[in-house]
């Protein structure tokens, strides 16, 4: 037990819509360098939970603290400024800009240069942008228009963008949705490697159980808005409650896509 606060501490997170509890009393924590998967069947409250972490959604009650500092009620951009990078289930990039420019925008924002009207943006943090792109294996694509990229490459670009503010925590919403199996493995391996090297905590939701069990250090399971299990992959796999939930759904999830994510 260390006295320092954990990287991410979630306490009693609750959100209801019209009397229906989407998320109820969820608590967990995350250490630096740890990769935590948030899983659960459809409608379990994963997305709601996730949105409350990144500021898209405000909890009815409960707390989210990043290194002891409260993030609930803050806007996504402020949470980002606290050192939280994120990727989206359906990629969100700047389609008319080049791959490098996409990263540069994030770097410009990180360097608080957003209202600089005079500088030459193409030269801002060019080297750093290049390094980040190299890191995710996109070095050769720097000058391509982002709109031309294949879907898997866009996911990797998002990772580079998410790393631009030197984050302490990465929030990845279904990072591998819509990707081919081989690409999934690559992306998660890359993510894990970066997380370990830079000691970044990673929280991700995922439908693909292969990805989850292979890459997560720890797994938390949501069902009907409440946390039903928490532990190592082996523990979770052996948890009868979890098995019941997933068997109730008919199968242990594999590679489910949500609509709209098709490439």
């Amino acid at each position, binding site marked *: 037990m260390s006295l320092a606060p954990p990287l991410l501490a979630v306490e009693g997170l609750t959100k209801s819509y019209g009397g229906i509890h989407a998320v109820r009393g969820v608590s967990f924590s995350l250490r630096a360098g740890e990769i935590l998967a948030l899983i659960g069947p459809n409608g379990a409250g994963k997305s709601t939970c996730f949105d409350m972490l990144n500021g898209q959604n405000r909890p009815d009650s409960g707390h989210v603290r990043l290194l002891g500092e409260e993030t609930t009620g803050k806007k996504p951009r402020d949470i980002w400024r606290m050192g939280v990078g994120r990727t*989206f289930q359906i990629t969100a990039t700047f389609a008319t800009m*080049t791959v490098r420019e996409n990263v540069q925008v994030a770097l410009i924002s990180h360097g608080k240069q957003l209202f600089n009207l005079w500088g030459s943006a193409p030269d801002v943090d060019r080297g750093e942008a290049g390094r980040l792109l190299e890191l995710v294996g996109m070095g050769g694509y720097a000058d391509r228009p982002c709109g031309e990229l294949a879907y898997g490459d866009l996911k990797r670009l998002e990772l580079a963008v998410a790393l631009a503010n030197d984050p302490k925590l990465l929030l990845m919403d279904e990072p591998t949705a819509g990707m081919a199996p081989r690409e999934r493995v690559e992306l998660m391996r890359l993510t894990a490697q970066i997380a370990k090297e830079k000691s970044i905590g990673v929280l991700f939701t995922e439908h693909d159980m292969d990805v989850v069990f292979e890459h997560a250090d720890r797994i938390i399971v949501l069902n009907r808005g409440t946390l039903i299990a928490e532990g190592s992959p082996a523990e979770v796999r052996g948890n009868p409650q979890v098995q019941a939930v997933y068997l109730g759904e008919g199968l242990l999830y594999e590679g489910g896509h949500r609509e709209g994510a098709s490439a």
Partner: protein
Amino acid sequence: MAFYVVQFLTGLASAASLFLVASGLSIIFGVTRIVNFAHGAFYMIGAYIAFTLTERFSGAFGFWGGVLAAALAVALIGVLVEMVLLRRIYHAPELFQLLGTFGLTLMVEDLVVLIWGPDDLVGRRAPGFKGAVDFFGQNIPSYDLFLIALGPVVLGILWLLFQRTRWGVLVRAATQDRDMVAALGVNQKWLFTSVFAVGVFLAALGGALQIPRDAVHHAMDLRIIVEVFVVVVIGGLGSIVGAFVAAVLVSELNAFGILIFPKISIILVFLVMAVVLIVRPWGLFGKPEAAARKTPGLTVNPWRPLTSNERLASLAAFVVAAMLPLFAGNYALTVGSEIAIFVIFAVSLHFLMSVGGLASFGHAAYFGLGAYGVAFLAKMAGLPMIVCLLLGPLLGCMGAAIFGFFAVQLSGVYFAMLTLAFAQIVWSIAFQWVSVTGGDNGILGVWPASWAASPSHFYWLALGVAALVTIALRIAVFSPFGYALRATRDSLLRSEAVGIDAKRVQWTAFVIAGTTAGIGGALFAYLKGSVFPDNLGISLSVDALVMVLLGGVETVSGAVIGAIVYKALNIWLVSQTDLSKLVLGGFIVLIVVVFPKGIVGMLEMLAQRRRKSSPPGSSLLAKPIESAE
């Protein structure tokens, strides 16, 4: 009491005509996303054809048959327009269709005068609805009662059409998600054509039904188009019920408003729209737009600063332009100054519209405020020209700061319409506040100081300022701020997720664009020696849009070229022919069809194609952009 009932019914009758036209516009926009500027033109043609038919064929059958036949005939014209013109440009950048339909409108305004002559035409009254019905001593025209009944009937028919037919289901689906319908394997082409035909039919019917109460004339289109847009937006885009409620709301507020404020009509609809949009950003019955899908075929040609060769070439061109006074006369120099000023105006809108993705329909407000700023300073404070030029644009800056704050809370067409509302409010203040602004007679005698008075000096001044402004905005485009602005345009979600306060960035861009437009306006005041409410008017705002679109909205230099081509052509045509609108409109339509990416966009595409054909093609397949969003 009877009076108020009758006034209410009168308001309903006005609402009915407005609703017919508005519903058509709403349907067209909902499905095709076309800002159909030509809707008023179809309304007008409907009235003209109905006039001809009802004059020729007598009796009740002749009248009602004529009205229906006119609406059908115009719907047929609409089909033709859709197939020949619009079909080619659905995949052009957003709002490019506006340019095409604007060109059509210009043409129609001249064509109707050529066909039907210059006189105002007064048609027959409707058989069976000629008189009035007595209501406790108040007269209600029976035709008003007919219209009052017609409104809900049309609403009902449309409702049935949308709820009970397969076509209607498809239309509703397409209103919500255009791509989904395409994915369903529906023949999108014919769906669009039929929707356009129905919309145009309603517009023409609305026009034809005006025959018994209005005069048919060549400016009918402009009288209705803006108002109808406002009604559609107040109601919520794509919502027929919304259009109906908004039409009633606006008409009743007007009917009762004039009892207390007889001068309210001129601004009422815009006030209502501004209030509604600030309180309900998607109109009364509208739904939040699904995350704005980028226009398919959006350029994948990234922007880059000029290469050193291009810089040299630009400099050379500038030097050539600066030598114009050596061989051109005073008139050419004055035209040159005007073009330079419009370059400033166009690049200012470009910054907002192309870089920021915020298409303002009321950009003239800030141009005009700059002009009025100068006029106030020069005429009231008696300040010297150079001081006026420096301080005048601040009025544009202030206006942009105030209105921009509210406007950037919205996006897309709602943003456009709120900027239009603000511009109209500013316009009506300039128009009404006679003691300060001189009303429509304007402020005269704002002539340049002697150092700038000669045409060549003024030309150099305008050219120099235009060059500085163009360069400054170009620097801004490639500055960190420019990147941030483009980021907010491309993806609000992502920009928020990388710490960008999108609203603040957009607001800043709005203020920059407004101030820059104000600089153009300030120079314009001195060029013309006077300031009029026209300088803030809708038609000037439309000119700015046209210039940006014509040059190519996806390019960095498009606005400059667009402004030069459009303004030079416009001045030349107005000087050469009374049919300048016909020729200019035809030219615009041609450009739209031939260069769907605008003039500069086209040049870039050609250049790129040449570049691409030399090295072997890239291994990456260009993927449609939707998959990335």
